[in-house]
């Protein structure tokens, strides 16, 4: 975060309001997009709004770097009476990540929607996209447990329909969206239930106040169940291992913009909230430790192994990437479950790395989809010859996913391994190693087919995607490469986040 300390990107009056503007900007932008006369205008609104949100997020990051924690009381009512935004280094990092991906997605949507969404639906689609962005940003910033539910729903309700819009390409998007809705709503309801139990025990909804009051409470079955329901509910949204059933279908079926945005942000935001609850709200004690080392860690390990294997046996590229996402969530949660500064930092670093590479991968698949209706790995035979630039970006993302040196993925895996070694958890190191090996298999298979095989004869010829699609794609892939060489920025952010959570710098 040190890099942000000297960053004054907005006038002081604006910086003071930046936390809320990050959220309100996209909300208002969504209205403007819905009102705009055509898809082109809506796209411009979308880009401008996302850029504004990113600008404000940078301003917030600068402020957080200087102040440590920002509190923003909404409506002028101090918490616990009112709702407050509370942003620490972790929140600022997440907001930067979400807003950056949001900008990339908005840029990308200009061309991507043309091939995937009917013209008359584009304004509403952009509006839904911005609502989703606003939802995730609100989720990241809010300091109120119930407000988090509201933003969870803001980001979800529109998204269900956005996923379903993918029916134009593949009708399986519809049942996938439906099951996403069922899972998502059950998750959100479980979360509300958990918050209800915590509220019953503490009488407050503000997370800081809740944490203070929980610390003075003894062992209470309502509190324990509250934690269980909160984590289970968020676990559904985060696609934590046994609760990930909705994810492969949804990611595979959605329009590529939505897949890319969800893969890069949705599960991350939910993981963020889990971290928030486990480390900030719940009192330190046996219960949390038992939860981390006996429930979270084994489930994460199971996700890494089982879903990587599933990805290997999957035949459709999008579904491979989707299963890989569940496995990668497992990697992140393994880091978190160590509960050490190094582990948390590694988890955060991995989270950022995964967001960038999965974003690039799904975007590249979308770039191919501009010209061909390819689904299975075989369909992509030799696509590197027909669309070299998109394929190169896909290659970079895939390399990062597999953990090839000089990519961000490599550093992320490396820091996870060293954190696990430091904590003395050898079995986690073993799981990481096996997981990486399995990742290498399915990544290798995709790359082999794309780069070293001849195109299937008689199939439609792919064309290179337009510049509007390639530019954001290259930014994401480029970031994966750049941070693989010089990781100062993400590493310092991850370290600051970890120390904001557990108090000590690694």
């Amino acid at each position, binding site marked *: 975060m040190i890099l942000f300390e000297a960053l004054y990107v907005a006038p002081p009056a604006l910086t003071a309001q930046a936390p809320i503007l990050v959220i309100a900007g996209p909300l208002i932008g969504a209205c403007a997009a819905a009102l705009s006369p055509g898809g082109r205008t809506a796209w411009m609104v979308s880009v401008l709004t996302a850029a504004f949100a990113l600008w404000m997020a940078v301003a917030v990051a600068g402020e957080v770097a200087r102040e440590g924690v920002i509190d923003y009381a909404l409506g002028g009512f101090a918490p616990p009476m009112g709702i407050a935004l509370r942003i620490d280094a972790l929140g600022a990092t997440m907001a930067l990540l979400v807003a950056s991906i949001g900008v990339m997605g908005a840029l990308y949507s200009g061309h991507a929607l043309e091939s995937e969404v009917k013209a008359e639906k584009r304004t509403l689609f952009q509006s839904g996209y911005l609502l989703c962005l606003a939802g995730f940003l609100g989720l990241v910033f809010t300091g109120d447990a119930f407000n988090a539910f509201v933003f969870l729903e803001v980001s979800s309700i529109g998204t269900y329909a956005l996923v379903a819009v993918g029916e134009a390409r593949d009708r399986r998007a519809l049942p996938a969206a439906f099951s996403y809705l069922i899972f998502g709503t*059950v998750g959100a309801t479980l979360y509300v239930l958990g918050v209800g139990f915590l509220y019953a025990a503490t009488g407050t909804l503000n997370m800081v106040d809740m944490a203070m009051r929980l610390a003075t409470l003894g062992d209470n079955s309502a509190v324990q169940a509250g934690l269980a329901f909160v984590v289970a509910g968020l676990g559904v949204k985060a696609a934590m291992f046994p609760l990930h059933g909705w994810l492969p279908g949804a990611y595979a079926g959605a329009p590529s913009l939505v897949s890319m945005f969800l893969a890069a942000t949705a599960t991350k935001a939910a993981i963020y909230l889990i971290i928030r609850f486990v480390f900030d709200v719940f009192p330190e004690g046996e219960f949390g430790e038992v939860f981390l080392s006996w429930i979270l860690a084994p489930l994460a390990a199971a996700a890494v192994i089982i879903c990587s294997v599933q990805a290997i046996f999957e035949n459709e590229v999008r579904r491979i990437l989707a299963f890989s996402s569940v496995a990668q969530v497992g990697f992140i949660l393994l880091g978190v479950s160590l509960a050490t500064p190094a582990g948390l930092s590694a988890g955060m670093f991995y989270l950022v790395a995964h967001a960038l590479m999965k974003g690039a991968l799904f975007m590249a698949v979308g770039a191919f989809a501009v010209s061909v209706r390819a689904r299975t790995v075989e369909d992509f035979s030799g696509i590197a010859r027909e669309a070299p630039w998109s394929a190169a970006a896909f290659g970079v993302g895939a390399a990062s996913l597999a953990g090839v040196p000089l990519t961000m993925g490599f550093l992320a895996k490396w820091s996870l391994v060293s954190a696990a070694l430091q904590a003395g958890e050898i079995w986690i190191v073993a799981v990481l190693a096996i997981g990486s090996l399995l990742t290498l298999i399915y990544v290798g298979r995709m790359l082999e087919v794309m780069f070293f095989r001849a195109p299937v004869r008689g199939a439609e010829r792919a064309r290179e995607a337009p510049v509007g699609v390639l530019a954001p794609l290259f930014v994401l892939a480029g970031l994966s490469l750049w941070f693989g060489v010089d990781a100062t920025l993400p590493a310092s952010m991850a370290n600051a986040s970890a120390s904001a959570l557990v108090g000590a710098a690694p």
Partner: protein
Amino acid sequence: MNVAVTHFNYLAAVVLMMIGLYVLFSTGNLIKRMIGLALFQTSTALFYISLGKVSGGTAAIRIYADSPEARALAAQLDPAYVQQFGVGGVVYSNPLPHVLILTAIVVGVATLSVGLSIAVRIREAYGTVEAGEIEAVARVDAAGAGRGP
């Protein structure tokens, strides 16, 4: 007192939650699933509202302290109780859960309508709303996946 009596409301909410979840997971019919989901969501309302009830309380719309209405309400209760837990001579129930549940109800109807609209589109695309049949068609779809000529 017995937990079954003192926590009766919560237990009823729990039973309804279980019914809702059961409906949700035991049927393949998408519409019925949405009904189960709605039931499940509503039961959290029961839970929250029960939390906010104060015995002897009244709705959280402030009454002037010396109005006949306020006096009539206070007369129903032990003066010491009113003194301790009342606000301005009247005991009110807790308004916060009501606000939260207003939000939750609205979210519920939003989810219901979006879910049903997706179900309608599923019917148009697959000719059925039974999950089993949809899966069968989807398997055929997956097998036929390919880069068309």
